């Protein structure tokens, strides 16, 4: 069984060594891509190549290895700049991941610009990474955190959002694609409305960066955060895109080497963008290998990957709906690559255990979105999420394994 006329998925799979391993004696069926994507050989090779050929500290050395490492590191920045459509590589800050990027903004921007009584708006769909940093800075600054409500289907209530906006709104931070449900939020409109009130907007792109075409200038967002490991790149590296004037107006997040221009015991002047926000020796190897992840996506094209994943999603949705007592959470049109469901009388943890014994990796639980689960009145869901290398046969295996598990449980 093949998706129709998109690309040769077996050729793609061949690039991912992990996909040929067995789990509990069965072929691995990896459907936990929203948590982290597997890595193509090109990414693994980039790491090995860096450590075996030109490992050196960057920006400071005058020797050949340092030159080569610096060039590769900065080439990654340019690749990321193009990947998200930023106007300059200076607007690309390397971080540890989405969580780190959001914390950087909440701390640095919040510290300078938030005042008592100011309002920060997030949505009901947020990952804990886009809730807790705002709670922390709000508590410190006596600012108020407000939450855009959703419908039972998980659709943002835009009317409620409009009514929340006002002169006190200083910051809006929303997720582009919900990791728990796969729903795409109308971020263009959110950004436009927020800007009418002069609020600054951060988009959590942890899930959207791999599936959607991202152009931060067209979107008009002020910040965009994502993680390398979800776009086929390594763990431990993430990105914060920030509009230059905003980044320039913000104080450094951490102090140390790299981020300085001049240090005396009496004073320090800070380096310019983007180095001002990259204190200490950065995660050189993973930053360099991130480019290989981006190149992998470019080699197929986001459009083709999306078409492929849409067919998997459609097929899975139709098949899952045939299962008695199964309810898809967030069963809406505008979504990507994620299918989250609950089954009457079945705890997600039981399902995960039985599916794992059949070689199927899915995610169960609250997906780091406890307030969302609470709002929906469920303890958690079972979530299958697809990537470029998944096949219709794997969806079929998921359905068979699910039916078998249910027979054992019910």
């Amino acid at each position, binding site marked *: 069984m093949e998706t129709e006329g998109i690309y040769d998925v077996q050729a793609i799979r061949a690039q991912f060594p992990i996909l040929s391993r067995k789990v509990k004696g069965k072929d691995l069926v990896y459907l936990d891509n929203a948590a982290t994507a597997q890595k193509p050989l090109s990414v693994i090779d980039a790491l090995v190549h860096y450590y075996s050929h030109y490992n050196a500290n960057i920006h400071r050395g005058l020797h050949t290895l340092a030159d080569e490492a610096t060039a590769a590191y900065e080439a990654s920045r340019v690749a990321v700049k193009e990947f998200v459509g930023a106007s300059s590589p200076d607007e690309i800050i390397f971080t540890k991941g989405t969580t780190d990027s959001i914390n950087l903004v909440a701390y640095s921007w919040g510290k300078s610009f938030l005042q008592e009584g100011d309002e920060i708006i997030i949505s009901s769909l947020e990952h804990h990474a886009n809730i807790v940093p705002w709670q922390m800075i709000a508590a410190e600054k006596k600012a108020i955190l407000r939450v855009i409500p959703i419908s039972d289907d998980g659709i943002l209530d835009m009317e409620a959002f409009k009514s929340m906006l006002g002169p006190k709104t200083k910051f809006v931070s929303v997720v582009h694609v919900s990791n728990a449900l796969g729903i795409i939020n109308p971020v263009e409109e959110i950004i436009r409305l927020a800007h009418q009130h002069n609020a600054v907007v951060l988009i959590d792109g942890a899930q959207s960066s791999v599936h959607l075409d991202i152009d931060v200038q067209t979107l008009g967002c002020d910040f965009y955060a994502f993680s390398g490991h979800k776009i086929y790149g390594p763990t431990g590296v993430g990105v914060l895109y920030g509009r230059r004037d905003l980044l320039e107006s913000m104080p450094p997040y951490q102090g140390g080497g790299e981020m300085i221009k001049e240090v005396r015991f009496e004073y320090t002047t800070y380096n310019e963008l983007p180095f001002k926000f990259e204190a200490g020796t950065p995660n050189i190897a993973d930053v360099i290998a991130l480019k290989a992840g981006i190149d992998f996506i470019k080699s197929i094209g986001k459009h083709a990957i999306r078409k492929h994943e849409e067919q998997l999603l459609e097929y899975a949705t139709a098949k899952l709906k045939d299962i008695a007592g199964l309810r898809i959470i967030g069963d809406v049109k505008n979504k990507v690559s994620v299918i989250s469901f609950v089954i009457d009388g079945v*705890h997600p943890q039981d399902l995960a255990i*039985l599916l*794992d014994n059949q070689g199927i990796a899915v995610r169960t639980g609250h997906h780091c979105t406890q307030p969302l689960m609470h709002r929906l009145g469920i303890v*958690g869901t079972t979530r299958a999420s697809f990537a470029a290398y998944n096949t219709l046969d794997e969806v079929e295996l998921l359905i068979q394994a699910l039916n078998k598990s249910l027979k*054992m449980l019910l």
Partner: protein
Amino acid sequence: MNNHRTIKNIEQELIDDFSLFETWEEKYEYLIDLGKKLAPLDPAFKTEEYKIKGCQSSVWIHSFAKDGFVYFEGDSDAIIVRGLVGLMITVMNGQPAKEIVEAPLEFINTIGLSSHLAQTRSNGLRAMIKQMKMDAGAWQVNAENKTVE
């Protein structure tokens, strides 16, 4: 007391039972069955006070002591975990407090549950065992000269 089965005896019986299972399905069907048969816990004990932290699912354990022996009841909203609760109750119920506190419970590693069931962190088995031992320890201190409920 003559035909009292020790924790070790019961562990051995379980090891023997599990050794008869040839497939993972049989093991899990056994646990699921155990979970379904476990007497439901009185809702009065399904509260935060009796809930065990550190589990993906909710687990509650309630204990009482009589004549120096400790008795357990428990529940979970996940059926396989409920089976694990049943398994631990089978092993520890009605045993002297001291024995419970000191039991190494090695059978868990021997019965060959798939790694993430044995890997106690993910399903709270470790938290469950810790709680049962703490309960027993408390009864041991408490029950020196009286029967406590």
